[in-house]
C-alpha cells in the first residue's frame, strides 16, 4: 500500500456517502414511484439533486474500479466503509444533528471492522498461475 492507493480508497470512501445523500434528497422531492409507474424512475434523473448524486457516484465508480484492480473485494468493501463514519461526523458537526449512543457504538464497530481488514494483505496471492484453470476469458485479456 502506498499514498496513491490510500487516496483511491479515500475517493471510494467519500464519493459514495455524498452521492447517496444527494440521491436521497432528490428522490424525496420526486415523490413515491409505484410499480405501475416504473418508467418515471428515468424522469427522476432530471432532478438536479439526483443528477448531482449520479455525478458523485460516477466518481465513486472510477475509484472503486481502480481499487478493485489491485485489491480483493473483501478488502476494498470494509476498508471503504469509513464513509459511514464520515457521514455521522458530518451530521454531528456540520448539520448539528443529535448522534445517539447506539450510533456512536455503530461507528466504533465500523471502525473496528476497517481496522481488522486494513492490517492484513490487500490481495490474495496465487503464485503458480493468476487465473482459474480452463478460463478462456481470463487468458484472452492477459
Amino acid at each position, binding site marked *: 500500500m502506498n499514498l496513491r492507493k490510500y487516496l483511491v480508497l479515500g475517493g471510494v470512501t467519500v464519493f459514495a456517502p455524498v452521492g447517496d445523500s444527494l440521491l436521497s434528497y432528490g428522490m424525496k422531492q420526486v415523490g413515491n414511484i409505484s410499480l405501475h409507474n416504473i418508467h418515471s424512475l428515468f424522469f427522476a434523473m432530471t432532478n438536479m439533486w439526483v443528477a448531482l448524486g449520479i455525478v458523485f457516484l460516477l466518481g465513486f465508480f472510477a475509484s472503486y474500479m481502480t481499487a478493485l484492480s489491485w485489491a480483493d473485494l*473483501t478488502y476494498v468493501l470494509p476498508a471503504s466503509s469509513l464513509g459511514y463514519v464520515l457521514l455521522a461526523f458530518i451530521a454531528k458537526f456540520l448539520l448539528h444533528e443529535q448522534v445517539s449512543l447506539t450510533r456512536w457504538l455503530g461507528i466504533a464497530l465500523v471502525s473496528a471492522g476497517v481496522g481488522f481488514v486494513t492490517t*492484513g494483505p490487500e490481495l490474495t496471492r496465487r503464485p503458480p498461475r493468476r487465473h482459474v484453470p480452463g478460463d478462456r476469458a481470463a487468458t484472452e485479456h492477459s
Partner: protein
Amino acid sequence: MIRHAISNLNAWLAILAVVLSSSAGDVLLSRAMKQIGDLGQMRSRRGFLFVTLLILRNRYFLLGVACMAVSFYSLLFGLSWNDVSLIGPAAASLTFVANAIAAKIFLHERVDGRRWAAALFVAAGVVLMAV
C-alpha cells in the same frame, strides 16, 4: 395501515433486489479488474484511452455494470417508498455479508477470520448507526 404494509413490503423487496444485484455486480467487476490488472500502472504505461477501451470490452465488466444498474434502480425504487435510514443501512449491511460469501465462492479470495470479522463488524455497525 394497508398502505404502510405495502410501503414496507416494497421497501424490503427493493432491499433484497439491491443486495442480490449489487453482490453479483461487485463479484463480476472485481473479476474484470483482476483480469485487466493495476489500472494506475497501466494508465501511466499505455495511456488513459487504452485503459478505458480495455475495460469497456471486458465482458465481466459489462455484465457487472448491468447488475449495478439493476441495483441502482432498485435503490431508487426503495428510496421512493421508505427512508434512506432504513434502505441504505439494511441494503449495505446485508451486501457486506453477501459479498464476503460470494467472494469466497466465486472469486476464491482468502476470506480469513480477519476479513469475516471485518464484514460482520461493519454490517453490525451499519445497522446500529441506523437505530
